[in-house]
């Protein structure tokens, strides 16, 4: 009986630590919804974040989305993925990046990293 309890405590501790770390670095979820970037229920076209932030892009539309940036600050291409899936990108340098969806170019987000 001791072991399951111990394992449970360890798991809870690990989970808590993981959350704390994520919070300290900053994880921000951006929904891809109605062909827009949405944060906390509102469309977002610009975002100011701290270095080390993790941006998590979650597809909430019933069709595929993509996320990419060709900005020198952070060049990346997260490919395309369907509803319910999410992909993350970390920003470790100060500067500005323009993020788009290659499928729906009206989805545009300027990220300023301080």
């Amino acid at each position, binding site marked *: 009986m001791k072991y399951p309890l111990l394992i449970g405590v360890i798991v809870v501790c690990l989970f808590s630590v993981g959350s704390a770390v994520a919070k300290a670095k900053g994880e921000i979820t951006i929904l891809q919804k109605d*062909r827009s970037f949405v944060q906390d229920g509102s469309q977002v076209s610009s975002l100011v974040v701290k270095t080390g932030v993790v941006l998590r892009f979650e597809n909430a539309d019933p*069709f595929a989305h993509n996320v990419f940036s060709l900005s020198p600050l952070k060049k990346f291409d997260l*490919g*395309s993925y369907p509803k319910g899936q999410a992909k993350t990108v970390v920003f470790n340098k100060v500067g500005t990046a323009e993020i*788009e969806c*290659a*499928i729906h*170019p*009206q989805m545009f987000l300027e990220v300023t990293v301080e």
Partner: protein
Amino acid sequence: MKPIKLTLILGSVVGLAAAGYGGYTVFSEQMLSELQKQYAQPTLEIPAKNQTTPQRVQLGKTLFFDPRLSGSNWISCATCHNPAMGWSDGLPTAIGNNQQLLERATPTITNVAYNKLHMWDGRFRSLEKQALGPIEAPEEMNQNVDELVKELSSLADYVKMFEAAYPGEGISKDTIAKALANFQRTIVASNSPFDEWIKGKEGAISIAAKNGFKLFNGKANCNKCHMGHNFADNGFHNIGLKNSGDDQGRFSIRPVEISKGAFKTPTLRDITKTAPYMHNGIYATLEEVIDHYDRGGDIKSNLSPNIEPLNLSKIEKQELLEFLKSLVGDSEFVAVPELPTQLISGKESS
């Protein structure tokens, strides 16, 4: 209303039909009310510096039909965007300067004002920026725009028309582009049976078309790209077409892997007027288009995840076709403008 909600509502209606409502889709008043919102005609976004006026539209129309806008003085915008052919040319791919066969089809300019980006690869962000593109392109109209400004400035009626449309701005690249954009914003599809139906005229479209609409939003996946009033998502997709050659489409503008072979989603408004279909004009009929999507495309390399085999029955294909036909609106009579000929010097232009 979001597509997912529509799917849910339609799904519940299918249940009703199966329960003995005649074997076809029933659309309640509430559903039609939701559809009216989803397909409502959006307000046009018109730049503050180029608001619509009758003088600007008339000038743009005159320029649009004037072959002197090309280097050869033989090709006008209307040569390829012919109002008698759904503002396109009826050709698989366009024919440009010196009769050269171009790589891409002439897109219709019907409802072009609702597009966020222009051209098959979306290279231009506004109609004002797009207007000079084909005029200056060597393979299309092959016109030196500085020369064009001189040509137009020598014609008395154009001098008057530009002054009436853009007082004090003169004849310039900028005012030529603005006038053409202004005119193009007036080319809007109207009064389709589909629109009549969602407004409540039950018999405006056939039962087959209603079933086709259900398929369009369900089994056939069409609404993943063809959405909203203009039946287009302003997006770019590789739909697996054969015979695309080396044309990489959107990738040439945004070099991201998924953009390879991706082209802009065209409107489906007035669709029967604009055959052949696809960016390379590969299909002569809508039946061929439906078969293409039913197969899940042909070339699987970099294929959009929205494209997959549909397993449509023969009847379902016919119903989809009937629905597409319901998107064809009234044909507007287009009076061809008389072109200025009187030179400022008093002589007639040759």
